[in-house]
């Protein structure tokens, strides 16, 4: 870790100005991923802007019923928030499926979105990685890649995004709020993270100097069923091998009125299953319909040598979650 300058920002303006004044600066929230990567030499910022003291630490219901989550709200507090547990159970479940109690106490909403891949080649500065050093190659493609992407990867990068929270946010149609020198804007979570293409060094569409100020969840009632399920190598404290978040609301006639479906650990970003959603919308909520829709989505999968299991795993998880959501008595 190289020495760095440090600012405890107290206003968003101050933070944005500091980011502008120090190109390459990073925001420090909980530090659970950034400090880890700085110790490894993967991140080498010359300046840190601490955002913990910004007034972004609240969860508030807006007039239209939507929920704004400040960027520095801790993962544990968000998971425990009564409105989140009532209206967005998938989000609470996803947060609680991630990391450990200690890490969730530190990790922030914004930081969770900006966390970087756990690809072992990305984390090891002695190895090639196009994400860390563009043009250096990819160690994972012919190496150990059981945990890597099956959807949307490129010749340059097969890394996955590790977040659980972001998968739920994608399925829930949440938006990321950003603020920079050019003002405020918002982006759907599902479009916030990129696919690697030929620029794998860019994880997200955030612009240099921009700051995440919060996340907004669309209005939902307590009855909107949603759920998150994750498969992993050990029973807790492990990244997903695959995960799924789903929102499913049925009409009175039993057809699908509203559906959101997203996969985790399959791609460089939370994978919003838009094809499956389209196939389901307005149709029957039956196991056959679910299977048809999920297969339609996963047809795009291009497994690598050792990660073909992920396709079947994701399929099974999605069918399980959708089926449970369609059978309210059992959820």
């Amino acid at each position, binding site marked *: 870790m190289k020495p760095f300058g440090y600012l405890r920002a107290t206003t968003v303006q101050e933070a944005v100005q500091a980011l502008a004044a120090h190109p390459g600066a990073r925001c420090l929230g909980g*530090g659970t991923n950034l400090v880890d990567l700085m110790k490894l030499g993967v991140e080498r910022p010359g300046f840190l802007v601490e955002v913990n003291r910004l007034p972004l630490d609240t969860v508030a219901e807006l007039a239209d019923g939507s929920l704004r989550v400040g960027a520095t709200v801790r993962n544990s507090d968000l998971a*425990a928030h009564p409105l989140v547990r009532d209206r967005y159970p998938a989000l609470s479940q996803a947060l*609680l*499926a991630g990391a450990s*109690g200690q890490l969730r106490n530190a990790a922030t909403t914004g930081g969770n979105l900006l966390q970087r891949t756990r690809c072992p080649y990305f984390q090891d500065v002695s190895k090639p990685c196009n994400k860390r050093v563009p043009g250096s190659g990819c160690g994972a493609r012919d190496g150990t890649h059981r945990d890597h992407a099956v959807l949307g990867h490129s010749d340059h990068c097969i890394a996955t995004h590790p977040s659980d929270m972001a998968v739920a946010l994608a399925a829930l149609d949440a938006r990321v709020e950003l603020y920079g020198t050019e003002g405020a804007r918002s982006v759907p979570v599902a479009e916030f993270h990129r696919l690697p293409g030929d620029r794998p060094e860019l994880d997200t569409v955030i612009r240099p100097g921009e700051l995440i100020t919060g996340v907004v969840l669309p209005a939902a009632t307590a009855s909107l069923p949603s759920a998150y399920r994750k498969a992993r190598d050990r029973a807790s404290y492990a990244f997903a091998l695959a995960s799924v978040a789903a929102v499913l609301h049925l009409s009175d006639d039993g057809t699908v009125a509203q559906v959101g479906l997203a996969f985790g650990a399959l791609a460089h970003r939370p994978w919003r299953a838009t094809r499956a959603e389209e196939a389901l919308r307005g149709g029957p909520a039956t196991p056959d319909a679910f299977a048809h829709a999920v297969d339609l989505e996963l047809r795009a999968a291009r497994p690598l040598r050792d990660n073909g299991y992920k396709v079947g795993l994701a399929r099974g998880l999605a069918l399980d979650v959708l089926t449970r959501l369609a059978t309210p008595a059992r959820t």
Partner: protein
Amino acid sequence: MDSSPHDHGDDGADSAPPAAYRSEVTLSVNGKPHTLLIDHRRVLLDLLREDLDLTGAKKGCDHGQCGACTVLVDGRRVNSCLQLAVSLDGCDVLTVEGLTEGDQLHPLQRAFLDRDAFQCGYCTPGQICSAVGVLAEAAAGHPSHATGPATPPGRPVPLDAAEIRERLSGNLCRCGAYPHIVEAVQDVAL
């Protein structure tokens, strides 16, 4: 001392990092205030161990992957290896050394002894501090991955064995004392 072309000698070694890379922080540790001028790179774990000689918090992985460094900051358990000390100005830190009141062990410390909830002892301070945090979190109604949907938001969560196991999963124990640790925490949670 041998000499070597790769030697700096003490002159170079005593050169401090430039002022831009250091800050003064004031924080309370186990109820005692400390003001230190620190390298921005210093994490809380190293501050405790190197600056204050409080070595109860352990360095097991230095990357938030083992929990041996767990302490409480403003009452919440965190991995002290990932907390930059400079970010903790004004914070209250509680370590395993601060759990004892005089000669009186904290109930969790007593329960760990009664249940033989450790072997090598290296993860133990982290397990105990983590358990202190778990008890507070459950009392405050924080759910876990093991919490059933029937538990109402905002109400204390009863800590059965499955809850304790899930909530303590950020604390590795290679000696495999887990079953006894769970029993010890249950003794105090009841």
